């Protein structure tokens, strides 16, 4: 996520947003401006940061350490996230991870408070700059089809790899998803 004078970008794209007046939130001035017109403009914009990430990692009280237990993810949540991410939960600094996650949550909450008008008129153009895709003609279409048929990556060749190899549970070649029925 990037913020700068008059523009607000998420990832590599944004909604088609109407220009807004600057509005205050947190300690920054954030506003949403018009679309970029060229890749050059985007690069220049990204090369001139005018804000600090730390600004958005601060909580309401502006203290570095989050002491409010309510704002910290629980130890159980941290362990579950570690497991879901494929990390070992033994011997790790759980309190530190709790702090980091809490800050990331604050960051996300700050983002969500941004004054965005996401009433996109046309989602096909929901990009940070207007885009025009070169139309495909019939000859191109047939050529693309022909090229694609015989152009496989290794993993796309049937039987090249065993998708179940890293699974703890599988049965007769199937993955297993367990649905808890509590």
């Amino acid at each position: 996520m990037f913020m700068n004078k008059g523009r607000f970008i998420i990832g590599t794209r944004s909604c088609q947003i109407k220009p807004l007046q600057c509005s205050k939130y947190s300690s920054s001035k954030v506003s949403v401006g018009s679309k970029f017109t060229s890749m050059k403009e985007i690069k220049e914009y990204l090369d001139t940061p005018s804000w600090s990430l730390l600004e958005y990692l601060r909580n309401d009280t502006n203290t570095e350490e989050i002491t409010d237990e309510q704002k910290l993810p629980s130890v159980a949540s941290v362990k579950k996230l570690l497991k879901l991410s494929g990390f070992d939960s033994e011997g790790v600094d759980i309190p530190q991870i709790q702090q980091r996650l809490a800050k990331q949550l604050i960051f996300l909450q700050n983002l969500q408070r941004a004054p965005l008008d996401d009433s996109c008129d046309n989602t096909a153009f929901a990009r940070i700059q207007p885009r025009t895709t070169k139309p495909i003609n019939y000859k191109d279409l047939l050529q693309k089809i022909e090229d694609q048929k015989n152009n496989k990556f290794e993993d796309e060749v049937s039987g090249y790899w065993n998708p179940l190899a890293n699974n703890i549970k599988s049965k007769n070649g199937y993955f297993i998803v367990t649905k808890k029925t509590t």
Partner: protein
Amino acid sequence: MLRAKTQLISHSLKGKWYSTVAKSAEYKLTCGLEIHTQLNTVNKLFSASTNNPFESISHPNLNTSYFDIALPGTQPILNYEAVLFALKLALSMKSNVNLNSQFDRKHYFYGDQPQGYQITQHYHPFSTGGYLTLSKEFDSIKDTEKKINIIQLQIEQDTARSLHVHQSPLNKTSGEDILIDFNRSNVPLIELVTEPDFHDTLQIKAFIKKYQNLVRQLKISTGDLEAGSIRIDVNVSVNEHPRVELKNLPNTSSIIAAIDYEYQRQMQVLKDGRIEEDAHVETRAWDGTKTTVLRSKESAMDYRYMADPELPLITLDNDVLEEVAKTLSKSADEYIKDLMSEPYHLSMKDAKILTIQNEFNDLYNNEELRQYYVDTFKSYTKDSTASSKIVISWILHELLGNLKKLDIPLKLLSDNLLPPNKLANLLTLIHTKVISNANAKQLLFHILDEFKTSRCVKLEEIDFMTLVKKYDLQTTNNIDYASLEEGCNKILSEIKKPTMIEDIKSGKKKNSIKYLVGLGMRKYQGKIEAQEIETMFKKILHIK
């Protein structure tokens, strides 16, 4: 209970399904269809892994790329063959193709979709509008003509196949294990949504059949309901009753039975004045005897649709529409009309056999069969003014019967052994009485059997006249009627059931004379025409 009480549901009669539920004029049935059609492209929709969902039975998870099982870091690459197939379908149904359609993400969490979203087309679907016209003449509906309007067509990816296994020993908790096979994941689908234009089940049945034939004719899908290549959900509403979406309908009989059940259920709700408590749109599943609530219909917001940032728009040049339109053939109805007119004059039944592909098989498709018939017809009638009915009769009954029996593909036969002009030669020999019908049948089976034994490789060109001579199959030109009479009398004297002769003579069992003719044909090894033998038996038995 409701089923028993109202004596509803459909019955199978000679393999055909029909509704026994009388629709009340006071309670109007309104239905719309959502049809998911698996496209038989070579590769999957957003990866180049092999598109063969039916392989899953023996080899689950064989045709799976990193993208198909959503490994982190993988990205979709659109398979343009699916775009071509969607164009064919859209143009065939006069649907307006969107030259700038887009893919969107539909978010939900379930084991059959590890990405956490399905890539579909929500905001800017592939095409909108269009229609399919049903008629009394060709589709056996009640109205003379009925136009079923299409709301939209959209391209989307199929989900993985889930198999539910209860209380697996693998699972030590009280949970339910779901087995997942990703062979089906990311297979291209077209979702077609119709307007709620259906008002009786005959129209629905006819539409499904017509649509199946269309996708088969376009060669974009196998079109099988039972195998899941086509999956149909039905929206049903009686009068002001809120719409109910019916799911889990694996075949046409289930669809008709579920609609009938739902019609009765909603009618009862309206009669009992329970509309207030029942007044919400819901999804119900058909369990074979009744519909049960699956869930209340999710609102559009629940899916958090968003444009897929990893896929470009499908931007098409206008020439694509023109060029694809040129590749489309006539509609099935037009083909049937042609075959019923000059010069073919086929019956509707025969014309439909040559046009409508009821099942997808490896031996022939309706297009190959129709072309084979037309070419044989032209060759046969080129030098003959004789009745051409023999052509359709031999192709549909003798040739197809033998091909199925011996498992020989029509195209192989036509290319390597029996092109249309050769079959026309055989038919001419039958017509000119060089060979009897019975012997021609035996000869045809013999050469097909040899062809099969030789693994259907190209053999030397067939000359039927040479074969007729080789196997001594010519009919006897100068029949010795005295000798024939003597032979027929001998056959009669050897009949052990004299009552049978009496029954033939008295007209009680008229058709039993065919049995006698069969004995005569065997005696004379098919060299005397069946008609001559029948005439002789009639003369002897004094039958007019």
